[in-house]
């Protein structure tokens, strides 16, 4: 059981990495894009915009954490 947990954690860290919010954001955006595509809307622009926002938000969290660490 412990081995299985370690195995799962390894793959989680390998694919998802430090910020799970980015992975969730990508999954949600792809679901919305697929929904729009099936409704006849060719929303090719949605994923690039979402990626820019997700990366920016993830980087900002690091900056905010650094500032909090500095204040403590």
């Amino acid at each position, binding site marked *: 059981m412990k081995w299985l947990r370690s195995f799962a954690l390894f793959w989680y860290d390998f694919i998802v*990495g430090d910020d799970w919010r980015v992975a969730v954001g990508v999954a949600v955006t*792809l679901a919305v894009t697929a929904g729009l*595509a099936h409704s006849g809307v060719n929303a090719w622009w949605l994923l*690039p915009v979402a990626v820019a926002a*997700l990366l920016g938000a993830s980087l900002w969290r690091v900056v905010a954490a650094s500032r909090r660490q500095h204040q403590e």
Partner: protein
Amino acid sequence: MSAWILFLTVFIACAVEAVEALTIVLAAGTSRSWTCALQGTAAAVGVLAATVAALGPAIGLIPLSALRLVIGALLLVFGLQWLRKAVLRGSGYKALHDEAEAYQKEVAAARAAERGGRGIITDWYAFTLSFKGVFLEGLEVVFIVVTFGNNQGDVPMAVLGAVTAVLLVAGVGAAVRVPLARVPENTLKFAVGTMLTSFGIFWSAEGTGVSWPGSDAALLGLVPAVALLALVYTVLLRRTGGPANPVIKADAASVEGSAQ
């Protein structure tokens, strides 16, 4: 995507990982046992080759649209990790990767470790250090080879890119017997992060059913746009005044993580 872009992307990604693996193998070889370090390397390369041989054809059986959606999404999440770390390195929020320093740390740890072996492996520490180093660095390459190769329907070209990079780095490493600290690793990682993210966006969006304007030519706009975005974020992060400390503690901001 032309076969040459596929080759080049895999080649650069593989070269970066091979340089890191070489540092670990050199540390194990020079401070412990060259025989066991090379045994560990050969064992890891064998396991990685078997993984590509098993996964490549298996993934090739998945329908193309589903493959592009799932593999593209994984590639995008994976690529964003590389790009995020590249921006953090470029802006001073994460330490630059330094092969010379990494080598010294590995050598110190190897010299302090106990000796002892099993069977034909006379030095278990040197074997496992090399095996783990090559396997973990190589796993990222396997991921890139399998995803890029299958999405482009050209796994052999992806494998060729990886093998060429490994042979080149191994050849140079064997000749100089020192860590390849002069390789611009951090710049190459930025380039690889850009490529993985761009192709991840392109393929996963196609997998959802959308059509890119200009079809494959959209990549000619997407790749520079992602690179520009990462550069802009790097500049913006530098303008925040830099980190409170030169490098944030891993447990405080989760900056450190997987191998790249």
